[in-house]
């Protein structure tokens, strides 16, 4: 699952990022090794204070996330995720409100700068969705009214 700033950007937040954070349910999943082999990448296990990482040109943008501070376990947070279509593939990403919650918990200086932007973006996205839903409902109601009128006119003309 894509998390962090990249996931926020995918949802429309106007922020910049240097990498794409990937959160795995199980970092030892053999599928990861297979995927890395396909693109000529390699897995670098954790050593000392250094977390596990990916090596190789094709995966240089990706970082491994082991835990999302302030959030639940992977399976719990999966419930708050969404699938985004990226053209040739679809990916799972963490919902913006959960990204904000995690950044609020971590509270690093760079997070403090980003949080207000993420909050504004979330408010804009939710409001836009609400307006679109409301407008869609109005159009559907009018369509219903129109088709009822047309049906009534047809019935009337049949009786003539």
């Amino acid at each position, binding site marked *: 699952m894509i998390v962090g700033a990249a996931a926020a*950007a995918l949802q429309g937040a*106007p922020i*910049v990022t240097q990498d794409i954070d990937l959160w795995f349910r199980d970092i030892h999943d053999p599928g990861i090794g297979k995927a890395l082999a396909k693109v000529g990448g390699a897995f670098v296990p954790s050593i000392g204070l250094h977390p596990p990482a990916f090596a190789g040109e094709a995966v240089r943008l990706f970082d491994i996330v082991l835990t999302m501070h302030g959030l639940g376990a992977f399976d719990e947070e999966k419930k708050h995720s969404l699938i985004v279509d990226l053209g040739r593939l679809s990916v799972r990403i963490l919902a913006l409100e959960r990204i904000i919650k995690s950044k609020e918990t971590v509270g690093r200086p760079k997070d403090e700068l980003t949080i*207000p932007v993420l909050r504004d973006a979330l408010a804009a996205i939710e409001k836009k969705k609400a*307006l679109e839903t409301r407008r869609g409902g109005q159009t559907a109601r009018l369509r219903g009214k129109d088709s009822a009128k047309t049906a009534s006119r047809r019935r009337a003309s049949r009786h003539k």
Partner: protein
Amino acid sequence: MRIDIVKIRELARKKGWTLNALLAESGVSKTAFYHLLRKDSVLPASLRAIAGALSVRPGDFLTEEHPDVENIRRIQTLTDRIVAGKPGLDRENVRLTLLLLEEEPIQRLRRSLTRGRNIDFHED
């Protein structure tokens, strides 16, 4: 220049809309629409006067608005509406979010990474 109701109905039908659905979709009231429909000319008298003085048709000096301009105006209007409902929001953040929502997710990510790393990000 008058409104051609037949043409409008036909264009709406192509979109799967009735006239009423079109008016609802475009946010135009029935009163405003039928008021315009009754007019001999929807153009202001001043424009017709200028055309008359030049001995040309108003269409000779009117140009279509660039589609991007219309899009930006729509986003500005939506930004105003959202910020009016929540005054604490930063107008620029809202406007940029709405602009990004016009793009595909992969374009949003590419934009974010390009600015963050100053590199190009390829889909493949």
